[in-house]
Each structure stands twice: as C-alpha cells, then as structure tokens.
C-alpha cells in the first residue's frame, strides 16, 4: 500500500512552521519511516499479545504521599512574563 502522508497537516498539528523545501525533505523522511513500519505491520500477529510497553512490568505506582513543591519565585523565574503570581500569556483566542 502506498504511503500517503499530509506532511503540512502534521506540521500544523505540531505547531511547527515548515517552508516548502522543508516540507519536501521531512515528508520524504517520514514516508521512509512509515514504510518501515508498514513492513512490520505486514507480519502475521495472530495469537500474539499486543505489546504496550517494552518493559515487562506493570503497576509501577507510588503511595499517595505529599512531597515538597517548588518555591513560586523559582518557577516564575523561568517565565517570560508574570503578573501577581501567575504566568502571563498572550490572548488565547482571537475575538470571533
């Protein structure tokens, strides 16, 4: 089956701005990756349990115990803009 990938859409969904030449180049690279995956997918897997994680482990939980949070000054120091203890961000949606 030929690989059909809308690389411009993938880039848009990932919020990555790509130029024409980049779309071309990454499109070809991703197609090669998907073709490799195609080959794996063509293998007969009847009766084989799906692998959801490479580690043969389950239930790696932690007890419900509170540990120290970071001081606010420290986390806000990493923000481009702050206001009254909040992270300040540009407007989220344009007016309709």
């Amino acid at each position: 089956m030929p690989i059909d990938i809308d690389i411009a859409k993938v880039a848009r969904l990932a919020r990555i701005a790509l130029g024409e030449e980049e779309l071309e180049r990454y499109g070809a690279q991703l197609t090669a990756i998907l073709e490799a995956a195609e080959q794996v997918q063509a293998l007969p897997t009847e009766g084989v349990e799906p692998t959801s994680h490479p580690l043969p482990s389950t239930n790696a939980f932690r007890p419900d115990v509170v540990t120290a949070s970071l001081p606010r000054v420290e986390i806000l120091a990493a923000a481009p803009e702050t206001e009254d203890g909040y992270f300040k961000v540009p407007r989220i949606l344009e007016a309709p």
Partner: protein
Amino acid sequence: MSGWEAVVGIETHVELQTASKMFCGCPVVFGAEPNTTTCPVCLGLPGAMPVPNEEAIEGILRIGTALDCEIAEHSVFHRKNYFYPDLPKNYQISQYDVPICHDGSVEIDVDGDASVIGITRVHMEEDTGKSIHVGEGGRIHGAEHSLVDFNRSGVPLVEIVSEPDLRSPEQAREYGAELQRIVRALGVSDVRLEEGSMRFDANISVRRAGDVEYGTRTEVKNVNSLRSLQRAIAHEIERQIGVLESGEPVVQETRHWSEDLGATTLMRSKEESEDYRYFLEPDLVPMRVDASWQARVREALPELPAARRARYKGLGVDRRTAAVLAAAPDIADLFDAAVSAGADVRLSGIWVTGELVAYLRAGDRALDETAVEPDHLAELSAMVTGGRLSATAAKEVLGGVLDGDGSPGEVAAARDLLQITDAGAIESAVAAVIGEHADAFAKLREGDEKVLGFLVGQVMRATGGKADPRQVSELLRSKAGG
C-alpha cells in the same frame, strides 16, 4: 418540542481528593495561592517523569465498580496532544482505546419514571491548570491576555462518559445528581460543582420522533451546576429544533453555556480541533487490575444511594426523607446508628433531615463538628414516645445537644422543658380545672366535645405547658364518663 426527540449524552469530570496529585507528590488543595503547588512533573519541565498515584487508581476503580462497569484487567495510558496555555506538557496524560473501566450503567428516577443510563467508559486522566482571562469581562474571546495558575495541573481527574441514553433536560439533571450522590458516598471526591471538582459537558442532538438515526450533535462545555445543566440542555434542544424547523442544518460545534444570557453561544466549530494524535504514553507501564484486586474493591464499597433508598423504603421512611438521606451518607449513617440504638424511625428521620440539616447549613458546619451521637437521638426519641417531652420541645432540645450542651435529658432538665408525667400531679391539676370551670365540664359530660380543647388548654396553663396534652384530654374524657 412535539414531534421531536432529544438525544443527550454527558461527559462528567470528577477531581479525586487524594492527598497528592496524579503523577507527582504536589498536594491537592483548593484555593491555594496561585502557582504554589507545582513541581517539574506537573509543570511539564523537560526530563521530569510521571509516577501514577495508587490511591487515585483505587478511587477510579471504586467509581467504576459502583457504576457497575467491567474493570479492564489490562489498561494503558495515552498522550492526548493539543496546545493550550494551561497544559504545560502540550499533552494530557489520559486513556484512549483501553480505559480502565467500561460498559457500566446507572439507574435514575425522574418523578417515579425509572430508566437505566448506560456508562460507556470511565477513564483516568490528569486535570489542567486554570486560566484567568483578563479584559472583556473575563470572556475568553477578546481578552487582552490570560493568567495561568498551575496548581490544578496534574490533579487526578476521572472522566465518566455516558451513552446517549438521556432524553430530556430533567433526566440529564437527575443523572448528574445521581452521579454526584454516588461519588460522594464513595468518599473519593467532595464533588463540589461550585468549586469545579465535578463538571459536565453535554452532547446534544435532536431527531424526529421515531427516527433511528441520530441528528448532528453539538457539545456544550464546562457546565458547573445541576441547574445550569438542565437549562443549557433545554435551551440547546430548543435552539436546534428552531434551526431545523427553519430548514437549516445543525452545525457540529462546541458551544458555551452562559448562565447570565440563559443561552448557549458558539465557542468553536469542530474541524481539525479533534485531531489529538493519541499515542501510548512511553513513560508509564501498563496497569494490571487482577481479579483479586477487583474483588477487594467490590467488597470495600459502601452502601450506594440506590440501595439506601430501597432499604429506607422497606423501613417505612417516606420518599422525600429517604432521598435526602441517600444524598448525605454521613447523616444517613447517623440515622442508621440511631435507629439501631432504638430511636423511632419517623422521629429520627424528621430530626436528621430537618433540624440537623438546617443547623449544619445555618452554621456552614460538617456533621463531625457537632456533638450529636446516635445514642442522643435514641434517648430523645424515648423521651418523646414516653410522653416526657413534646415534639416541639424535642426540637429545641436537639439544638442544645448539637451545640454540645449535654445529653437530651440534661438539656431538657436545664431548660425546664420536661413534661409532667407524674400521674398524681396531672390528676390534681385536672381536678382543680374541673372545679374552676364546672359549667364547661358539665357540657363535656353531656357530650359536647367542643369544650374539650378549652379544658385541656386550662390544664396546660395551670401546669405551665408541661403536661402531656394527650394524657390530659384522656383524663378529662374518662372523668366525664366518656
């Protein structure tokens, strides 16, 4: 809406009240100073690794089991990818095709009309941060900028998805209310709608009565009260019928309910917004909930609201009282303990759903902040049925007990509310009144029942209101030879 049928499904989000967050040890608290309960994990800093909170998994298993779901022996976490300032990792850890609980149901009853609402799935995820939109009256559209608080980021969040089995705004509201009661009974969340620890999204469509195909649906997001849920759905049904009757199609879109406008308004139309590029969360290993874990959860479930209502019906508790009790597990437990201690079912039901609830509400108190014990209600009940205390005085005594003034006996004595039960004392008061009002008593002898009330009143006055009026009227009747 004659000729039309509404089809509604509801997604309910419930924040679990664990001590720590879903994937990190930051505390789960409501109302803390902004950005004071965060760490590299819940801020999505590079390299930070999530570790699931076992208590949260226990909590969702309790919810799923209570909703009669199948528990998946094997389930996994996925990443749901989207971009929003309150989502620091640019993905939310959630569950996708293998949720931990699925295929359950809940029974609801609207004015005696029972229906079973299917539960598609119950899955585990994490909450996002909170954005405050500044400018334009806090509306997201046209805001100058937004402020983000990540305290809520990573709080354990359970999503309960119903089948599109609801057919009216009233059913939808009752479904939301029943979920709230169930989760409260389980003790895994405080389910405070006004604080956002329980919130609803409703998917709504309409179709011609008798049609099998569903109509195009819209989604109304983030409804945060039961009343708003009912109103928003009612409005959206009306709106869609109006659109269809004018010959236009319903557009699939996300809408926002405005309590002020009493209407839904367009938030965004669905286009690419739904492409979340789910993939397996590589940082987390699968969950395995084996049969013995499932059995442990099942055995540890408390009595659920529906079971309580049924049991109270059997006890002869009236419908309204049973409903109030089933919605308030702590008060219902007190009621049960009082009845086991010998308290009268009807009197205890009146006291705990009447005086007690009013007392808690007036002082914004929790039950465990009061001094009342089950034995107090049993004692109070015995005083009333034994004629030592009037029903009216009992309510005042209960108030004193709640305030911590002592046992019912002590409060009644201290406030001089006890009735005279000494037969001799009542007898002499009655004799005195008969002597004083010989005319009236003569009329009673002749069978004129109208004067009975007057004579009883005189005895009550003579005893300072402390005689049992029933006992007094019996005595007067027997003396009159009745």
